[in-house]
């Protein structure tokens, strides 16, 4: 009444004005390119393709099943199957994508592709600085650029990555146990003379997965089933470690 409210309000804003010069914790803003707010673990921007190991071509988990392409509500994914097959992480021969494009100008970050992927091959990234000079070609991201290592996934979403890695390791262990059991049965059934050729074939099959250090595959299929649980020890330690800001994300110049 009679302007006292106005005076009260002006006193408040004056307090803010003066206070912002003396009390640093009043300031709510972050000087963005230099300082950054640590990215939350639940953050998501656009999808990327996960690969194991070092080589994005060989280790790509995607098997070009095209479920994500079909499920994508705005239809921003384009997949073309390659005719050649490559072995997946358990050593089974699978298709691979020849072309895998995501149009980021269309993508709405709904994460449905991630939900439907049965191979844990597509995950959500947290990178948001994706401005390009070209509105059309620049925002059409190709396979090579989309492929990011499992290490990156472990870094940005540690909890999810640990669960995924545990799943995959369990699956792999199961597959290996099965393979071992089959091998054992075969070994029992077959003549002892054939045993040498089987061992050589298994060794060749295990040759490719052995180069993947991320999962640290067992060396040979002949290893007993008690060993696999120790192999995913590295991913399982991840959740406890980087729940706070990952060091590489908040780089203060």
């Amino acid at each position, binding site marked *: *009444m*009679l302007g006292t409210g106005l005076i009260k*309000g*002006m006193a408040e*804003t004056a307090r*803010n004005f003066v206070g912002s010069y003396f009390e640093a914790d*009043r300031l709510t*803003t972050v000087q963005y390119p230099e300082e950054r707010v640590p990215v939350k673990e639940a953050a998501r921007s656009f999808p990327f393709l996960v690969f194991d190991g070092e080589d994005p071509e060989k280790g790509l988990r995607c098997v070009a099943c095209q479920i994500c392409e079909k499920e994508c509500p705005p239809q921003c994914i384009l997949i073309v199957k390659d005719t050649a097959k490559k072995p997946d992480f358990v050593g089974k021969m699978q298709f691979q994508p020849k072309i895998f494009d995501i149009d980021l100008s269309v993508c709405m970050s709904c994460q449905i592709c991630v939900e439907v992927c049965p191979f844990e091959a597509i995950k959500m990234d947290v990178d948001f600085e994706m401005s390009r000079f070209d509105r059309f070609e620049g925002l059409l991201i190709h396979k090579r650029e989309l492929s990011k290592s499992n290490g990156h996934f472990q870094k940005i979403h540690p909890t999810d990555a640990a669960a995924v890695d545990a799943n995959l390791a369990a699956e792999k262990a199961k597959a290996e146990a099965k393979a071992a059991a089959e091998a054992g049965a075969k070994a029992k059934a077959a003549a002892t003379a054939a045993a040498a050729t089987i061992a050589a074939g298994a060794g060749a099959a295990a040759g490719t997965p052995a180069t993947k250090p991320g999962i640290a595959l067992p060396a040979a299929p002949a290893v007993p089933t008690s060993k696999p649980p120790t192999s995913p020890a590295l991913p399982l330690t991840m959740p406890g470690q980087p729940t706070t800001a990952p060091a590489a994300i908040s780089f203060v110049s």
Partner: protein
Amino acid sequence: MIELADQFFVLSKQQILLLMPVAAQPLASVLLSIIPIIGVFATLFALTTVLERKGLGRIQNRLGPNRVGPFGFLQPLADGIKSLTKEDVVPFRTDGVLHFLAPVLVMVAALLAYSVLPLGRNMVALDLDAGVLFFFAVGASTELAVFMAGWSSRNKYAMLGAMRAIAQMISYEIPLILSTVGVLMTAGTLSTTGIVEAQSGYSGLLPNWYVLTPWGFAGFFLFLIAATAEANRSPFDLPEGESEIVAGYFTEYSGFKFAMFFFGEYLGLFAANALAITLFLGGWNSPLAILDWVPSYVWFFAKLMGLIGLSIWVRGTTPRMRSDQLMNFAWKFMLPMSLVNVLAAGLWRFTGHGFLGWFVCGSLVAGSYCWLGVELSTKNSLKKRVYRFAT
């Protein structure tokens, strides 16, 4: 020496004129008055935009612009380059000529007002006998420019914004002019320099400014409020209330035309503040007798910066008014108060400037303020809203 510093710009203009051939002197004299005004106030505009953004930022516990140049002070330069290089989009159905003329007219009207404002001793471009009237006449033509902008855009938001702006400007023009009447009556002149000279001198320690009288104090604040409404600034910025009508009457303007509207708006604000200084704050006069050696234009611009700071502060504090509150405030509070103020100024003339004058005029102004305030805030306070259809 003091005299030289005070009259530096006046004398240098005379010297430059003497170097010119006689035939070119009238034109050169005009140009030498116009160019500094445009230059100084364009710079002040640039400075004010960045200061306003920084000030508002601090009020909201932010930092404000701090990237371009030292402490962000080159931000207006970057903004200017941006608006110059932007595409000038003119919608298909617009009334071409009017759409183009509206921002020009806004700027011209705002700049014309500066020709009668005394920026320092002997520093007035055009010492008109009817200077204050000229100021208001020029200010009135802004309404036409606003209408042209809103109507020619062929856009409902622009039209609504223009209608709101014009309704608001017409309503607040009356208290704006009436609040100056007391000053004009006391000074006995409409010339801006005459009004400033009438406020020179000191009575005791205090200067003879009109703001230091009961009616002048009330008139000053009435004038500032009405000028804020004329300049469409918060809390009276509902012609461009972006939550309702996008950007008001310059919705369909882009690039440099938009920048011209922006510039014109700020020029109008500066002009109104400068007139408030001229009428109530003693113009170029110094507040204390011992500070008389400071050049007159320094005082003027110091006061101007003070008032600009006040307007930034108010903008950072007040929320936007509702349309009916705006009109009620204009017609039920501002108009009666300014009329009472005219009466108080008349009484001040006859009661003498002593205790009696203060008592009579002060109690008249303060009493009517309290009465109007209580009356309006109790009778027209917001009742609990009753919904007819929703439960």
